[in-house]
């Protein structure tokens, strides 16, 4: 699926006095869950609206599967999105909400029943969406996003209002969708929600991308991560790792601690130089720690707000 990619380049967007996006650039690659993380007001929703052609950027552009969104014919077959779970007509039933969407993309009504089944709303299909709980609306939103079986899926805060069971279900679904080769962009202001499911992380703060990296690199880059290992030749290992860019400390006879390199980079460097080693372990900060290091001072309403949101 080479349709399965989101490319965002140099997005800038101003709302009156607020510079909501200040040169946002990142890629959500195929087959991965890209976590789009930042504090309140960071610009996540604005970026997503720009990708979907809902808001026009002042500068820069966004492409989905290589095309600007507005050029897509039957766009829901290319991109499925959940922007706002509350955005349903309260008097319309879940099924009819999906039905008009299906009609707009020349999709069979059979798809409607399939996605209702997928999100576990089959039993509530003929109930009015106005009576749905927030969690049920999230599921309906996911159903709408999956209607066209799209290679790209964009979800803005999908865990909002979900009970623990729902969260487990959602995490599993996201993993499955990525494993099918789709590109997923999932926003959250809680790092913990995405721990264990996101492969690729884009951290945004005050309209700027603070970090974009695979989850391992991100963790390694953060201050505090250390790779521990044993080797009979610590001095040689020290030289090799230094050359590879690591900061190495010889703890005692035969034990080293390395920071600035991910464990696999350490293994690769030592392996290439035929240094004998064993017992490689990573002492890593949690994603949470990384996130706070990156976003401290970047939260629109101060770090306190972010930490408040944490608890």
């Amino acid at each position, binding site marked *: 699926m080479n349709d399965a990619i989101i490319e965002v380049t140099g997005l800038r967007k101003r709302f009156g006095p607020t510079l909501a996006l200040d040169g946002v650039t990142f890629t959500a690659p195929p087959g991965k869950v890209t976590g789009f993380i930042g504090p309140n007001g960071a610009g996540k929703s604005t970026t997503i609206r720009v990708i*979907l052609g*809902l*808001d026009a950027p002042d500068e820069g552009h966004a492409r989905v599967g290589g095309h600007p969104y507005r050029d*897509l014919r*039957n*766009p829901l077959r290319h991109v499925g999105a959940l922007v706002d779970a509350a955005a*349903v007509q309260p008097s*319309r039933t879940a099924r009819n909400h999906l039905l*008009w969407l299906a009609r707009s993309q020349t999709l069979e009504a059979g798809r409607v029943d399939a996605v209702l089944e997928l999100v576990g709303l089959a039993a509530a299909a003929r109930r009015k969406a106005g009576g749905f709980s927030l969690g049920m609306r999230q599921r309906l939103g996911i159903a709408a996003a999956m209607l066209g079986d799209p290679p790209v899926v964009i979800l803005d805060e999908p865990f909002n209002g979900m009970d623990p069971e729902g969260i487990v279900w959602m995490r599993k679904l996201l993993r499955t969708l990525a494993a099918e080769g789709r590109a997923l962009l999932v926003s959250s202001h809680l790092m913990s929600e995405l721990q264990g499911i996101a492969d690729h992380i884009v951290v945004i703060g005050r309209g700027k991308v603070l970090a974009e990296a695979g989850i391992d690199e991100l963790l390694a880059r953060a201050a505090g991560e250390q790779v521990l290992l044993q080797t009979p030749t610590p001095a040689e290992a020290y030289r090799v790792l230094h050359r590879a860019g690591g900061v190495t400390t010889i703890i005692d006879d035969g034990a080293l601690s390395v920071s600035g390199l991910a464990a696999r980079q350490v293994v690769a460097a030592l392996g290439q130089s035929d240094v004998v080693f064993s017992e490689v372990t990573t002492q890593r900060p949690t994603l949470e720690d990384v996130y706070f290091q990156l976003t401290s001072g970047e939260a629109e309403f101060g770090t306190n707000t972010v930490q408040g949101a944490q608890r």
Partner: protein
Amino acid sequence: MIEALRAEWTKTRTTGGIAWLLTGAIAVTIAVSAGIAAATHVSPQGGQEDPTKIALTGVYLGQAVVAVFAVLTISEEYGTGMIRVSLAAMPRRLVLLAAKAATTTALALTAGILAVTGCLLVGRLMLPTAGLDPAHGYPLISIGHSPTLRAASGSVCYLVLIALLSLGVATALRDGAPSIAVVLGLLYLPPLLAQAFTDPLRRHIEQIAPMTAGLAIQATTDPHSQPIAPWAGLGVLTAWAAASLLIAALLLRLRDA
């Protein structure tokens, strides 16, 4: 375009309130006409009245319900945020607006035909008892009479144009209540304002105001009693509706969703 039409039609079909509003529009129109017909008593001199116009009086109030219906077709989407779902599904915004205009037209047309037919039947049945009968020089209301046919079909067109005008205003303003206020103000205020002036200014106001110009189509006996010629009047209303949709289209294209 065909997908957008089917989507908009499905939306309309599955919104409970719309059927009620349209039924309401028909009922109000016919009820007002019936009330006016019942209240009409004509002195035996004869020759002064316009039975068709009397029978179509209900349009004066029925249009308000049609306006509310048309406003809601888009303002409810802005109110719930569903407009973003619609625009994500149909990113070609003018196609979306055109599809909305088409379904609005179809529904206003249907409601208009039913309402106007009801009005004519009510007039034909009730007005003779008010003294508007052939014995006094008033033929029974009949669609075979060409000015009556013009007044009737024109009234249906009038209701459709009011719906399109309202759709345009609501697309531009997004919010339901202000849109309804603006449309009703645009319809009912100029005739009241005009009363504060004398001719020719009063006549000019009535010639360019959407309601007074548009309803000139209803006169069958003495077109000169009207501020403007029948079809020209409907033309003025068409210009209003077109301007409103044009502004709506422009704003929809240019603004963020």
